[in-house]
């Protein structure tokens, strides 16, 4: 591959590796990176992975689209359902889902409603979110914002739109969140996961070209870095070839 690996390509590859054959999952609202990850997993090791749970099954887009709510992206698919079926999927849950927001906090909670002020007198009003159920009816979810700054990674979100681990194991149990919740946070800079005891976010690996100190500087809470942080395993030749030649044919992930 001639061109350098882009941060979004690195994100796609990390996420794709974590999806297993035979699973059922959907991309969520910010679909570009998740859809590429799902497509890559299906091409490489998970041909029985089903894209479903958002009213359409197994779309075959000719290229990547920023939104999956586009008939160009999903017009060619295996089935279309309606919101009545989405209601059922939301209750039955998926194996995996993807989320990102205006703010993400140390427990993986996500805010899409407001930054500053209150809900009905916000300093900055966000878009809100449609689906609040998959974060806990699904077995697990991934957080994958396409930016990683000290402003969107904060100690505590101003509003919990999508609950992650709330304020830790006890709060999560009290709220009836019985599934895994957020498993990985994959950003353009790094991969983060959650300490199994405290459920606080921690740095798992940094992408090529980033240092743990860079990531800490762009994160609004203490990552408690101790010891060596490995580098994120870069895309293999094959991952990159399949991604660029068969999925991201228009180079959207490198734009």
């Amino acid at each position: 591959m001639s061109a350098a690996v882009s941060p979004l390509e690195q994100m796609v590859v990390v996420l794709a590796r974590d999806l297993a054959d035979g699973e059922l999952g959907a991309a969520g609202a910010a679909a570009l990176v998740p859809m590429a990850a799902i497509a890559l997993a299906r091409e490489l090791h998970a041909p029985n992975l089903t894209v479903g749970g958002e009213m359409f099954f197994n779309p075959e887009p000719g290229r990547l689209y920023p939104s999956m709510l586009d008939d160009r992206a999903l017009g060619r698919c295996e089935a279309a359902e309606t919101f009545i079926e989405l209601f059922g999927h939301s209750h039955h849950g998926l194996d995996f889902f993807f989320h990102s927001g205006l703010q993400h906090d140390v427990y993986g909670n996500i805010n899409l409603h407001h930054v500053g002020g209150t809900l009905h007198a916000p300093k900055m009003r966000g878009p809100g979110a449609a689906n609040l159920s998959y974060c806990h009816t699904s077995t697990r979810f991934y957080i994958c914002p396409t930016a990683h700054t000290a402003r969107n990674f904060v100690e505590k979100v101003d509003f919990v739109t999508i609950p992650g681990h709330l304020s830790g194991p006890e709060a999560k149990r009290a709220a009836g969140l019985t599934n895994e919740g957020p498993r990985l946070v994959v950003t353009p800079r790094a991969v983060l996961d959650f300490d199994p005891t405290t459920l606080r976010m921690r740095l798992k690996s940094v992408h090529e070209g980033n240092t743990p100190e860079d990531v800490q500087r762009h994160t609004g809470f203490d990552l408690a870095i101790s010891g060596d942080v490995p580098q994120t395993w870069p895309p293999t030749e094959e991952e990159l070839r399949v991604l660029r030649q068969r999925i991201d044919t228009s180079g959207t992930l490198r734009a």
Partner: protein
Amino acid sequence: MEGQTKPTRRSKVTSLQDAALLARGALEERPELCLGGLFKQSRPVALVRALLATGADGLHVYSSPGAGYDIDLMIASGAVEQVFIPGVTLENRLCPNFRRAVEAGQVTAHALDALTVVGGLMAAAHGVPFQPVDALRGSDVLKYNPLLREIDCPFSGRRIHAVGPIRPSVTFLHAQEADRWGNLRHLSTMVYADQLMARASDMVIASVDRIVPDEVVLDDPSRVTVPSHYVDAVVEVPYGAHPTASFPNYAMDEKHIDAYADLGDAARTGDRKGLDAYITRHVTGPKSQGDYIEAVGGARHFAWLEAEARNR
């Protein structure tokens, strides 16, 4: 044979203006308007513009699960009092007028989620007093959601949620085709929540890309997404969803929406001139959909959007 004329079946085809006045009348009784489509696809924008041109205001607007350009334009035009839409976004950027009006306290934007709105529409469509919902936990939305209630489940004994019927006064839909009786055919792959809204609403008005002969419907009844029973009026409006898409006929006009959002962002930071001019040029100015089509780029522009819809 005088006086013996056999009565004939009434067509539901009407004009954009008459449809808007019909909606306006119903919304003055009860201001609950619901919009079909989803984000940048199959939104009934021509109907929205025609309603705005009547000077409608004080509206409570529903859509599920998300809306963008149209709700933002309605807010920019001062027509909206409350928003009952889970997600309000242009997808690639925030909705500027929505954001400004909510931050200024001029519009109430309720914190909701899709299951609440879909569940409420289901309860109304089914004719039952509520719909149980059992998939919501841990979100702050649950503290504010005005439509959701906690109940004791008589079957499981657990605390679950329930939502009462959402019965819009008027629903606007955009479909690709209809016959003159009002049987709608969505030819896009996705039909969003349109079928549910139609079955939940007191009044349904649809714009379509074209009216088709009766036989088209009769030859393939499974293709009818909304039977005419639920539809009160249908309007043939070329490019009636613009600047959103009407797949497979034409794609969304992303540049138009982005340019609009730039004007909205300018208004948000103090300069409303461009936004006002936009509204005059596109909403209150055009005397007809033909005028509107010219105002946004004419036949050549739409030929491009048609080509883009096939380019997948």
